């Protein structure tokens, strides 16, 4: 099931879990130093190996897509923004339900991504690892006994594994604790980022926690460490919620209903405002204050209202005011549907 159309374990606070594995072929320079000819040859070899595996991948030719369609892939977390900036040929192999995406020709030759709704790290890793094993057994991989999988950046060498969890932390955000969280987790080898990944500010109270360490720690130990940190964050957020907005608190109900009010009536809305209001609505769902709405529905809305995905569904480029208008339409319809679901 596509991750953003559903909700998973601990889905009330955790939006998604993501795994990324980096692999390179030996005998080719790393991404930035490939010649275009080498890049094309490399892509063909990897595509061939994946096709021969019998797995059913959609071979996406990024160069044939419009800028809006490309942006929509970034918004759905299927590719990194960096993939679009590579000077050399790049590619994307997409599993049919979008839970597996293989980026070709990024900083590392192969980056296998696996996405799951909710807190589901180990199954997500197992899915990515199964793909990695197939590739490893068919292609000559840059690997050493001493350092494991060799990558372009020494911060990825070893397992090449980056695991991230996207959490909804409205209480910790409002209590101004995210910065302290970020400072402290970095000492443990984890980074905290905003909704839009690297360098992004926190939006819609969504925070992404991921590992920095890939060498000197095994895959399962790392996932277990990250899982424990996430569990601690969940406990903290729940405690902070009792303090910041107990469920009997009229102010919290007010906040949730205001969000529903604005989302249900606005005619123009920016994605920043919409993400913040959807965060309030999500909080309402989590506290049982918003009958008719679900976390899965909010996950799906968050993707639908992003600029690229909006333009892709419109089938043409849209200027900002037009996007704000379409975004407001989508949200009004969703709120109306939620309200009528609650009434029946």
């Amino acid at each position, binding site marked *: 099931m596509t991750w953003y159309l559903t909700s998973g374990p601990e889905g009330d606070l955790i939006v998604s879990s993501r795994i990324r594995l980096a692999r390179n072929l*030996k005998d080719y*320079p*790393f991404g*930035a*130093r490939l010649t275009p000819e080498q890049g094309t040859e490399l892509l063909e070899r990897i595509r061939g190996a994946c096709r021969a595996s019998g797995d059913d991948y959609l071979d996406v030719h990024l160069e044939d897509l419009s800028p809006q369609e490309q942006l929509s892939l970034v918004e759905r977390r299927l590719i990194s923004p960096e993939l679009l900036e590579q000077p050399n040929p790049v590619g994307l192999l997409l599993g049919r339900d979008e839970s597996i995406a293989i980026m070709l020709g990024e*900083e590392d030759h192969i980056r296998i991504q696996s996405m799951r709704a909710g807190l589901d790290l180990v199954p997500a890793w197992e899915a990515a*690892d*199964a793909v990695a*094993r*197939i590739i*490893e*057994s*068919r292609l000559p*991989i*840059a*690997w*050493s*006994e*001493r*350092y*494991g*999988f*060799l990558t*372009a*950046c*020494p*911060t990825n*060498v*070893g*397992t090449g*594994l980056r695991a991230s969890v996207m959490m909804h932390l409205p209480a910790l955000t*409002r*209590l*101004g*604790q995210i*910065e*302290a969280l970020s400072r*402290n*987790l*970095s*000492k*443990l*080898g984890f980074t905290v980022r905003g909704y839009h990944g690297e360098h992004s500010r926190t939006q819609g109270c969504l925070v992404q926690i991921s590992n*920095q*360490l*890939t*060498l*000197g*720690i*095994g*895959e399962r*130990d790392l996932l277990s460490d990250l899982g424990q940190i996430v569990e601690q964050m969940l406990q*903290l957020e729940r*405690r*902070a919620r*009792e*303090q*910041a907005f*107990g469920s009997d*608190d009229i102010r919290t109900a007010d906040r949730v209903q205001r969000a529903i009010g604005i989302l249900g009536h606005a005619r123009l809305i920016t994605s920043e405002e919409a993400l913040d209001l959807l965060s309030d609505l999500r909080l309402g769902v989590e506290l049982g204050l918003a009958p008719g709405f679900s976390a899965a529905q909010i996950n799906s809305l968050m993707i639908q209202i992003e600029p690229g995905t909006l333009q892709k569904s419109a089938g043409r480029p849209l200027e900002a005011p037009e996007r704000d208008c379409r975004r407001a339409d989508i949200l009004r319809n969703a709120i109306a549907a939620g309200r009528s679901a609650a009434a029946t």
Partner: protein
Amino acid sequence: MNCERCQRNEASVFITQIENGKRSVMHLCSDCASKLTISPFKALWQQLAANAPLGLWKSLATSPQMQGEAAAGAGLACPDCGLSYAEFLRSGKFGCSTCYKAFESRLDTILGRIQRGTRYVGRPLAGRQSTATPCPPPPAALPDTSETLDLEPACFLSLAPEQQTAWISALRDAQNEAVAIEDYERAARCRDAIRRCLALQAEPAAGEEVSP
């Protein structure tokens, strides 16, 4: 409503406190709220902060400890892609997989600063033909944990069972000593070394590929 503390910004945080059975609500702006240390967080931050800081690449390349690094690796260059060690330090990126071999003499210093350890402990490469490397002879005496925490897997497996147990218990002692002097970085390394040994014991055939 304005913040009770600064009286300036709009209050956006409402903190309910229950003291001696009496309930009171504080109205604060998020700036002021972030300056307050709220009790449940304080304990957690202290607990989390008990680990040694890790440098990231950016700070690493410019850190004083790394100033001598370019000089130490002067003259090193990759025979395959031509990347010099100085260029690697500047960009933080290897040019190709051969760079790892070319810069091997300096890598433990670099990786030791940005990673948990300097040796791979993940799963083996899939589909690799078992190269059946001969086991090194078991060490005459166990190394001192003050010198090393990592035995090569093959070396650990070549130990007699009671020696394996002795090594793990030496690591446990080292971990406890490290905790006692609040050297949490070393404690974490000990913990990982113990985990690795236990994993090797549980899986004596490790290194042989299990088909997926």
